[in-house]
């Protein structure tokens, strides 16, 4: 029978590539840890969800230069203003740590300043978001707690389904992915908001699924091959066997995410981007992190 295949029967020595992969992973993890520290001390591009403050999205009827808008708002007493233009549109997201401008709401102050500074350019407030500082703090703590708890729950599940070594290795691989994504977002200065946390957890889930699929095959082959071959070979054979599945699944998910990235609009763009990068990292880690870790551990034992 003939099948359409993207990979013919492969026999790539993945375990042999582990040291090169570990260098890359090391860089990603260090980047992620750095990003995490910066997030913790509030130096990253966090959304008002976490920092507290006000964010207003406005749409102008005529083209507007971002510099002019910033100058006008700064003059109008909106401190630490950050402005982001929505790609390809006359929409701007104005962000500040302020929650209150005197007796006025920040949103009203911003509207007032803009209408005074650009009387000829009509604008519309599309949406606004005001978050008090205590809310942001609770949210951040909850997000961190959610990530840690789900990771613990997953180790327990995998340790139960496979064994402890697999559980720990899968968790390290998942941490690797979450950190890598955090690091990449930090370096690119993308906004980390509540959707980003959702993306992190989704990717944790996706990467685990990938890892479980590989582990499942390793377990199956270990039982089959028993003492006849060494663990490195078993892992290599297993990864090669599931390689086409891994690639096809990633490819289809990436296709959908690409659609979301291109036409999903700006609200979904960052989310889709996080998932896109996350799927790439998650696929990579199930092959180059999760499996070699088992190899290292077993070889030593």
């Amino acid at each position, binding site marked *: 029978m003939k099948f359409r295949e993207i990979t013919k029967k492969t026999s790539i020595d993945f375990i042999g590539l582990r040291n090169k992969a570990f260098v890359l992973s090391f860089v990603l993890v260090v980047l992620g840890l750095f990003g995490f520290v910066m997030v913790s001390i509030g130096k990253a591009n966090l959304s008002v969800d976490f920092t507290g403050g006000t964010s207003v999205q406005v749409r102008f009827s005529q083209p507007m230069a971002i510099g002019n808008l910033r100058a006008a708002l700064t003059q109008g007493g909106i401190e630490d203003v950050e402005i982001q233009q929505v790609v390809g549109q006359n929409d701007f997201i104005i962000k500040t740590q302020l929650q209150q401008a005197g007796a006025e709401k920040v949103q009203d102050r911003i509207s007032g300043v803009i209408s005074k500074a650009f009387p000829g350019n009509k604008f519309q407030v599309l949406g*606004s978001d005001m978050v008090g500082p205590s809310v942001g703090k609770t949210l951040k703590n909850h997000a961190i707690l959610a990530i840690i708890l*789900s990771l613990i729950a997953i180790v327990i599940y995998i340790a139960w389904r496979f064994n402890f070594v697999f559980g720990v290795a899968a968790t390290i691989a998942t941490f690797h992915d979450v950190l890598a994504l955090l690091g990449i977002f930090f370096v690119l200065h993308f906004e980390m908001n509540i959707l980003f946390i*959702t993306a992190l*957890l989704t990717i944790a889930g996706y990467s685990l699924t990938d890892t479980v699929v590989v582990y*499942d095959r390793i377990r199956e082959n270990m039982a089959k091959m028993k003492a006849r071959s060494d663990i490195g070979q078993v892992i290599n054979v297993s990864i090669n066997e599931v390689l086409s599945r891994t690639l096809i699944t990633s490819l289809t998910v990436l296709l959908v995410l690409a659609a979301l990235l291109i036409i999903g609009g700006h609200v979904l763009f960052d989310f889709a981007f996080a998932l896109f990068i996350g799927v790439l990292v998650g696929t990579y880690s199930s092959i180059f992190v999760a499996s070699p870790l088992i190899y290292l551990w077993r070889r030593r034992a």
Partner: protein
Amino acid sequence: MLRSLRFRAILIFVLLFIAIIFLLPNFVELTGEWKDYLPSEKIHLGLDLQGGMRLLYQLDTAKMMDHIVDRNMEQMKDGMIREGIRFMGLDKKGEGIEVVVKSDQREKLYDFVAKQVPDMKVAASRVEGDNVYLDLSIAATQIVGLKSNAVERALETIRNRIDQSGFGVREPVITQQGESNILVELPGVKDPERALELIGRTAQLEFKLVDEGAVQSSTGAVPEGDEVLPMRQRANETGGPSTIIVKKQALLTGDMVTDAQVQIGGGQFHTGTQVDMEFSSEGARVFDKVTGENVGKRLAIILDNVVYSAPVINERISGGRAQITGNFTVDEAKDLANVLRNGALPAPVNLIQNTTVGPTLGQDSIRKGVEAAILGGILIIAFMIFYYKGSGIVADLALFLNLIYLLGAFAAFQATMTLPGIAGIILTMGMGVDTNVLIFERIREELRSGKTVRAAVDGGYMKAWVTILDAHITTLITTVILFIFGTGPIKGFAITLAIGIVINLFIAVFGSKAIFDWIIARYKPRSLSI
């Protein structure tokens, strides 16, 4: 085999039928008898999709406790004078009250506190010479009760205000969050400013006498027992607010108001819009007495420490009615009557989060999200057919079933569709594809090893099943935790994904497998297009 196939086919079609019934209201308007027997609710759209407001308020319970202590102190003062207890001092101290008496008054005071001041308990006492210092505070057990009671009353009051507001918000959400926070969601609200004004105001109504003779000194000081309050500013007035000096003591408060209605162009002397209030019988008696004793003076009508009007009392007013005038717009008057009717909040509320999404943004988002979902769907369908040929069609059918079930479940549970929810649907589709890929790759392996079509399909499904189950359960774990810790949009994502995972598993067992089994039983193929 065939028996179980029939069973599975029936199950699939029955569920499909139910899902379509629940989805029907989204496509056709049901009328007449149909409406009584079929579900008629459309899928709820979240704030991010249809626009609206999400407000998080914190009930300022500290201020409320402060008020309670104040009130108790007033009561104690009156009570001790009445009972003939000679006290040397009565002061607020921290969150309690300190009373100083001579030691011979001590027993009488203890007795008095125990019998007549149920809110307060003796927390500490000390003796200095002949003076006894007594610290009273509200019992800790009672504080908890007072606070939770206050949150409940605030919820109730806000709910009533919104229900009677005429905002036309179909599904407002008013719930408690955490210990003393109140979450209000108003999907599709048209006038966000007005909603903020209506919900956030405390609406503490007071009647106080204007102190005509009093003047404010250059340092801002006013005579003992007086206070300066700002007058309400009208919409088109310029300049700073004018102020008025009133007696501190409130003669009548809003809790004695039983009803309030808008009068347009009514009233004897007034042609503008005004609000008529009706007092309880006790309120009517007090109002009668107060107006009778103060004919010729001005009575200030104060809401949240702003003087709305201060008419001269021309004569004793019996019958328990009063009006508030003041050039209100019709909406202002409606909202004023609304808050007076429903009473004050037990404590002021602070707005700590306000997310407002305009309808344009929501429509943009939903259109783009749906477009992306459709494009993504088409890409997947095309890819599956390209790669797995005939079996790809089976997978696409399974995916389609999956989508209908998912949306049907959404409608049936009346879950709220949010933007992350749409992302969740897309992700579910991705997982559905993965399930099929896992199975098909296994079937291919079985076929390569030379098994018959039937054995290969059965073996493929069986071997892939373990992996599929593990993969879905790990994702489900994440989902449950997201649901517990997430708020608003994240909850929507978690719900979608959770429903999707369960449906995915169901379809993996019953959906595509049933189609394969049917094809194999019916046509007994010697090879499989996969």
